[in-house]
């Protein structure tokens, strides 16, 4: 599969600060990728470079085979920047029409396209207003709308649900779920559940360096690991019983959270293993709060970043 993004030794410095340090990765077309890292890791800088807002200090970056600021990419990338305001004193609708016109729509088709986007993002009641009169969440939905104009091949979403109330955040997640089947998608977020639910791949960066780039399934070892959150701490007899089950390789307990167990097994039929464990827990009278295939995603990411 051809790469939609290729970074080779990508470095960006701001004075003495290395925001990105020799990043090396490629992302295949039609992938949905989560970009994860602590605050100041370089996520927003990477987004800015993918769009050509910033130039590399060293190394190279290509998007769809072109340099990010190439004229050939214009209108083919949609971006939801983090907390960047639209123009003041101009209605959101007028700005959306401008963006559509710049992407090659004529006056009539631009209006039709904006109507489609308004329906998609459900912002019909917001677009006639000036951006400065809208709340943070409303402005974010307008910004999301502009990123979807003209069905761009690559969509970059920087913290798409941060600062949104739960209802709107849920709407935005539904829109992103729809988009992932039609577009290449890169999402930067601190919400790891969001990343896990929407993305196929994850890129973890810290202090500008690549920590891990892998498929999410590989990272959380979905096929041979179970994470169980119990109602009460697991006693030693229960742990021994679990270890005695066939196919169980290891039981990992968490000192910081005695309610959580991670079960590592090796079996061609993981469903059967799950049923056996559930049966054993039922026999022991231990209630279950959560039962997940794979290791806890958040724990894996935190572990990788802290080891880095």
């Amino acid at each position: 599969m051809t790469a939609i993004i290729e970074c080779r030794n990508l470095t960006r410095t701001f004075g003495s600060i290395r925001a990105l340090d020799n990043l090396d990765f490629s992302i295949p077309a039609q992938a949905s990728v989560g970009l994860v890292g602590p605050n100041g890791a370089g996520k927003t800088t990477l987004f800015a470079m993918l769009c050509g807002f910033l130039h590399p200090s060293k190394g190279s970056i290509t998007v769809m085979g072109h340099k990010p600021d190439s004229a050939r990419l214009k209108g083919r990338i949609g971006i939801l920047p983090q907390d960047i305001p639209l123009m003041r004193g101009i209605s959101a609708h007028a700005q959306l029409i401008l963006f559509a016109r710049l992407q090659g729509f004529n006056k009539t088709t631009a209006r039709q396209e904006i109507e489609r986007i308004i329906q998609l993002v459900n912002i019909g009641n917001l677009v006639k207003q000036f951006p400065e009169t809208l709340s943070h969440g409303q402005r974010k939905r307008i910004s999301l709308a502009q990123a979807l104009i003209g069905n761009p091949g690559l969509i970059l979403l920087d913290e798409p649900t941060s600062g949104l109330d739960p209802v709107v955040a849920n709407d935005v997640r539904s829109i992103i779920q729809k988009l992932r089947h039609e577009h290449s998608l890169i999402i930067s977020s601190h919400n790891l559940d969001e990343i896990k639910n929407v993305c196929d791949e994850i890129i973890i960066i810290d202090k500008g360096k690549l920590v891990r780039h892998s498929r999410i399934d590989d990272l959380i070892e979905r096929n041979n690991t179970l994470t169980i959150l119990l109602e009460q701490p697991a006693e030693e007899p229960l742990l021994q019983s679990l270890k005695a089950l066939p196919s169980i390789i290891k039981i990992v307990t968490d000192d910081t959270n005695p309610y959580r167990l991670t079960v590592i097994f090796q079996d061609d039929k993981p469903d059967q293993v799950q049923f056996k464990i559930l049966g054993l827990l039922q026999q022991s009278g231990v209630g279950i709060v959560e039962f997940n295939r794979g290791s806890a995603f958040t724990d894996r990411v935190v572990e990788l970043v802290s080891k880095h």
Partner: protein
Amino acid sequence: MNLKRIFILACFDLRHSLFRLKGLVFLIPFLFFWYLNLKFLYERGGQALSSPESIVILSWLYNPEIAQILLILYPPVLSVFLIMVLASTPVFAMLSGNDQLASDSGRQTFRFLLTRCTRSEIFAGRFLSHYLLISLSTLLMAVLATAVSLQNDAHSTTAIINYAGQVSLLVLIYILPFVAYMSVISALMSSALSALLMSASVYIILIILGNYLEHKSGVTIELLPGGLKEYLFDINPHDLYIGVGGLLAFTCIYFCIGWLVFRKRNI
């Protein structure tokens, strides 16, 4: 560079400038200034402007030959209009052009445009919209000044119309380097106010520096397009070509510096 996108950007910016602070900061003082001056020309124009007193005053500002050409040979209302435009253009260019690029660069609003058009298109679009804003406003005043001239001046209608065309053309060329000057300052700064203050400061420094260098070397050194305005009054075609050529050269230099700054700027 896509000309259609430049045109779309320029039209959008021009249309919305008229109703936003960045346009009103220019339009309100501009209209007030010209209301007062056109009213004065309407009430006191014609013969009063051709009087010996007026010629003496203008001789003091420029030279007697130019004063006589402007106030006797040409329709005096339009000549005074031209003098006022040339004198006021630096100030109005600063008021209209301070937000060409500055605040949208500072607030990173250009990021919404940059995925749809190139930096060069944004730069050219903003240059064009600000040039159109100040030049169309000035042309509108030129039309009103022509009407006042037709009413008050003793020259023939044909002579007035011909001279009005010549004045309009000179004004259009004269405005160009000032808009380009503002594109340099605006590309450097991150807010409209800072661009306005910086443009005024740099302009004053260049005037002082030009006078100092002239005093030291004994040779006329023009660091600003305003120094070329005397060439534009002259009826000698050679001087007129020097004036127009100089203005176009200033435009090219400022435009290129502005583009080099904006091209490298993190926006």
